[in-house]
């Protein structure tokens, strides 16, 4: 009876250890009398034993055989020693091949790994017992330990083991000395490979066993074949492209990115891993204001590349804003948030998206064809992660095919290109390099960066629901816009020069402005009724003026203290909306039961990009789950009239009105 040891490294694993077959073939080749490795003789005190090899000969032979350099030859040789095909005659416990004159010998095929039998504890016990007899009880420490353990475990057949050991010892003594020495060495080498001394590396260690036995035949049942049939039929119908096309794309990709591959082209200013100077990372941090030339260039490679870079996305967003189609990107981002977001919020997010982007007359209605819209709206009854996939794809392709190309020619992108920094290559001297290596600076933890990012986000949301914040990030330090929110009417009709001085606080106190002027939403509609339906709102006015008056805006401007205090107030306001209610008494006049919607508490960050005029959102008897924002002309190019309708309430088609 054979008891299969689970940890055996025998035949069972052979299919997985592909190297064994190759190594065995190689060993046979090496032993070829004519073309093999030259053998030496080993001298022991008075006897000489033939067929020993020197390390350097083995390495040279392997290097010649495979046409590789000596270092690789040595590595291959070391693996052969580690697997026990060749064993060292001296320093027998270190299974490496030294490329010098130290001697090695080929192991007998009987002792090769992965023979028909597994490595048994019983055999090891016999070996140790034999050794114990020969060394008269003086075993090495780990051997002694193993011996004692085996004695305990194999107590039931210990008599047999001892008898076997004695028998083998006696038989060994009868052999000629060279034979005996060789056999002892072979046996010892075998056990060094299979029962390595603690702390040494063992090539026999295959790691965790996999569940499936590679020798096992797959069961052949009807469902096994049916599954394959179903799958293969599907594979046959799968659309393919010509190899030349798809491979051409890969070749093109490689040539396009060649200069961006740190292993193929020099990194500017220098690769931090080589010079220990993290300037490269600092210049390429996600939140840096002026991206490098290389980074800006990458945005032209593909639309995906542009979207995957936060800075790139900012610029694109700004461009879309100018094109009055920022809702596309916002919608795409919202869809991503559904897809990769937490499962519990999908329902909520889907509704939010419906109300913001999909419903008729929604504030940021996206332009998709009726069929896709139908499928999507149907799906939203039971929202799942990919419910918006069709619509998202549609919008993505729209942006990719149309907007992306024009973005790359737009002034926004040109400006990025113009301002992009092109760092000069570092030229460190030896001493500077040594200095760098000694002074490795730790970096900010990603957790802190994340916190900062969130704070920034919160600040943006609090400072004004305006696209201008993006713009300011992009061109100049943020002049606090909250200040102007009170008199957007004036600005929109004022001369561009007035708008070009965004941080001259014209009013004495923002709070008083808020109180004195009529509530934003009211005034806004007044303004629009008096002008063309496409009258550019204040945001656009300022945007364009900033575009023209760049010089002025690039100089950092100190924020008016008033604005700061207001922003602080606003942030506090996120927690208690009553502050606003009391500050703007007119709100209550407009809508008796309405309350001021504190900013920054909106679950959808993408819906934040609204006009200045929405600074105080007046809510008219809306249940909190059907929040909808007043609409302004830019986001609603189709019908300015529907904007006013939108203020009322949008009910999702699957919701009852009473809800």
């Amino acid at each position, binding site marked *: 009876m054979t008891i299969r040891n689970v940890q055996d490294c025998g035949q069972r694993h052979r299919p997985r*250890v*592909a*190297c064994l077959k*190759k190594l065995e073939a190689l060993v046979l080749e090496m032993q070829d009398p004519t073309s093999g490795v030259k053998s030496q003789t080993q001298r022991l005190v008075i006897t000489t034993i033939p067929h020993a090899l020197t390390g350097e000969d083995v390495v040279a032979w392997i290097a010649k055989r*495979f046409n590789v350099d000596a*270092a690789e030859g040595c*590595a291959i040789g070391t*693996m052969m020693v580690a697997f026990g095909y060749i064993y060292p005659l001296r320093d027998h416990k270190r299974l490496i091949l030294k490329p010098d004159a130290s001697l090695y010998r080929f192991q007998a095929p009987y002792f090769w790994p992965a023979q028909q039998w597994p490595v048994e504890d019983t055999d090891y016990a016999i070996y140790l017992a034999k050794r114990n007899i020969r060394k008269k009880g003086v075993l090495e420490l780990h051997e002694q330990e193993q011996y004692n353990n085996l004695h305990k475990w194999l107590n039931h057949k210990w008599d047999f083991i001892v008898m076997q050991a004695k028998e083998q010892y006696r038989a060994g003594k009868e052999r000629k000395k060279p034979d005996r020495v060789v056999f002892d060495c072979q046996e010892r080498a075998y056990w060094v490979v299979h029962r390595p001394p603690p702390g040494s*590396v063992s090539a026999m260690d295959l*790691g*965790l066993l*996999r*569940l*499936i036995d590679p020798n096992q035949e797959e069961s052949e049942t009807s*469902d096994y*074949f*049916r599954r*394959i*049939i179903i*799958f*293969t039929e599907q*594979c046959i119908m*799968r*659309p393919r*492209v*010509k*190899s030349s096309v*798809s*491979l051409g*794309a*890969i070749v093109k990709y*490689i040539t396009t*990115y060649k200069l*961006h*591959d*740190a*292993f193929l082209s020099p*990194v500017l200013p220098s*690769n*931090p*891993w*080589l010079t220990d100077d993290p300037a*490269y*990372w600092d210049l390429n941090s996600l939140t840096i204001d002026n991206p490098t030339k290389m980074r800006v260039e990458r945005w032209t490679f593909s639309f*995906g590349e542009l979207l995957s870079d936060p800075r790139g996305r900012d610029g694109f967003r700004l461009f879309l804003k100018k094109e009055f189609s920022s809702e596309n990107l916002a919608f795409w981002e919202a869809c*991503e948030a559904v897809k*990769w977001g*937490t*499962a519990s919020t999908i329902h909520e997010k889907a509704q939010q998206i419906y109300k913001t982007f999909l419903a008729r007359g929604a504030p940021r209605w996206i332009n998709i064809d009726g069929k896709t819209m139908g*499928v999507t709206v149907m799906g939203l009854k039971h929202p799942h992660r*990919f419910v918006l*996939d069709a619509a998202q794809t549609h919008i*993505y392709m729209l942006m990719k095919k149309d907007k992306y190309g024009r973005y790359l020619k737009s002034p926004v992108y040109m400006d990025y290109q113009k301002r992009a920094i092109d760092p000069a290559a570092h030229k460190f001297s030896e001493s500077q390099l040594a200095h760098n290596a000694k002074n490795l600076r*730790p*970096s900010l*933890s*990603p*957790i802190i*960066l*994340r916190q900062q990012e969130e704070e920034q986000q919160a600040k943006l949301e609090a400072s004004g629901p305006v696209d201008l914040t993006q713009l300011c990030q992009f061109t100049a330090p943020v002049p606090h816009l909250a200040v102007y929110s009170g008199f957007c009417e004036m600005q929109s009709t004022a001369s561009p020069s007035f708008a070009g001085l965004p941080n001259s606080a014209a009013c004495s106190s923002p709070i008083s402005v808020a109180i004195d002027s009529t509530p934003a939403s009211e005034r806004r509609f007044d303004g629009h009724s008096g002008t063309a339906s496409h009258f550019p709102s204040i945001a656009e006015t300022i945007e364009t003026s900033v575009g023209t008056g760049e010089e002025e805006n690039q100089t950092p401007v100190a924020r008016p203290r008033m604005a700061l205090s207001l922003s602080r107030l606003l942030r506090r306001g996120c927690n208690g909306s009553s502050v606003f209610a009391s500050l703007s008494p007119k709100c209550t006049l407009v809508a008796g039961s309405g309350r001021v919607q504190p900013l920054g508490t909106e679950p959808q960050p993408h819906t934040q990009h609204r006009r200045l005029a929405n600074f105080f959102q007046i809510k008219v008897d809306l249940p909190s789950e059907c929040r909808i924002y007043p609409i302004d002309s830019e986001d609603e190019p189709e019908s300015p009239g529907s904007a006013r309708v939108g203020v009322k309430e949008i009910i999702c088609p699957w919701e009852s009105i009473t809800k």
Partner: protein
Amino acid sequence: MCDQTFVAITFGPCDNCTKTKPLMNIYLNNEAINYCSLCVELMACQGLEKGETVAKLKKETEALKVKLEVERAKLHDTELHKLAEKVEAVGQLNIKARRVLKGHANKVLCMDWCTDKRRLVSSSQDGKLIVWDAFTTNKEHAVSMPSTWVMACAYSPSGCAVAAGGLDNKCSVYPLSLDKNENLAAKRKPVAMHTNYVSHCTFTNSDLQVLTSSGDGTCALWDVESAQLLMSFHSHTADVLSLDMGPSETSNTFVSGGCDKKAKLWDMRSGQNVQSFETHESDINCVKFYPNGDAFATASDDASCRFYDLRADREVAVFTKDSVMFGASSVDFSMSGRLLFAGYNDYTVNIWDVLKAERVSILFGHENRVSRVRVSPDGSAFCSASWDNTLRVWA
């Protein structure tokens, strides 16, 4: 990702049971039908019809496979190395180990980079998880896992959490904190539950979902917050050893490989296995997407790495060499996809030129098997984890 993946309707009424469910796009006798996964499963498991035998089914299977190869061959008009003839060769690479991270007390089994390009997380056989600042070689956190053999670990995209799993059959998420002395083990949040060891895990495009592969032959997508199973992916017939998410934001696909010698491409929307490649002769230890998402590479115990093109639907390159005799454990691409770094069981890392399928360099240094090779997010370096208890950063 190729545009064709967008066409399929993935949610709607099933053609068979008419219930609205995620749909699999399959073909019966060359006719497209949309069945839900349950109906497909029922169809597969129905008993033998009259006059039908297993042998007959087997014959049909083989005939279909031949047909598939014929279809594939129709559009096979050129080879990668022919196209690459005009491209200039890769110059001399001067890659050296720039950092050696010592601190694990046993085999390092897995590692993953943080998006900040300098931090990384590694897991080891002794059940320890270590977060390093590889640049300064400082350890930032050390976590003890409930079991040994932590075979999978991943850094979240925000850099605020790590996930790890192994022999405990679970994949747990640990939120990181700024306080280095805090006991992170107490903040362990088990997310994924498999019926066998977890072989690989990765976050999807956010911190909120984890994708795992397991020895039980499945891959699964999990919601981190609620620890609920969002979707499972069945089709492998043996241990799944590795998976990789599509690199592009628009892709809804991932690829997996395992002990059944198959590499499979999955559609995450329907949970359907859409492509399968079966040219390896032994277990596939690692799969890795090409940077543009249209191809992927595999590393296998048969001592070869292979390169598959998804759009052409076939193997386009094999990376083998006479002198490379040992199994490959892990692969990753350089930024441009020109170089393929592959870790091997003979303690070396080989660097292959993807276009010409030639080896351009070999790196020595590790004293035991290389278990994982990962290129840093900006492509400025790559890290190798090894059974010799160390990690090395090469540049």
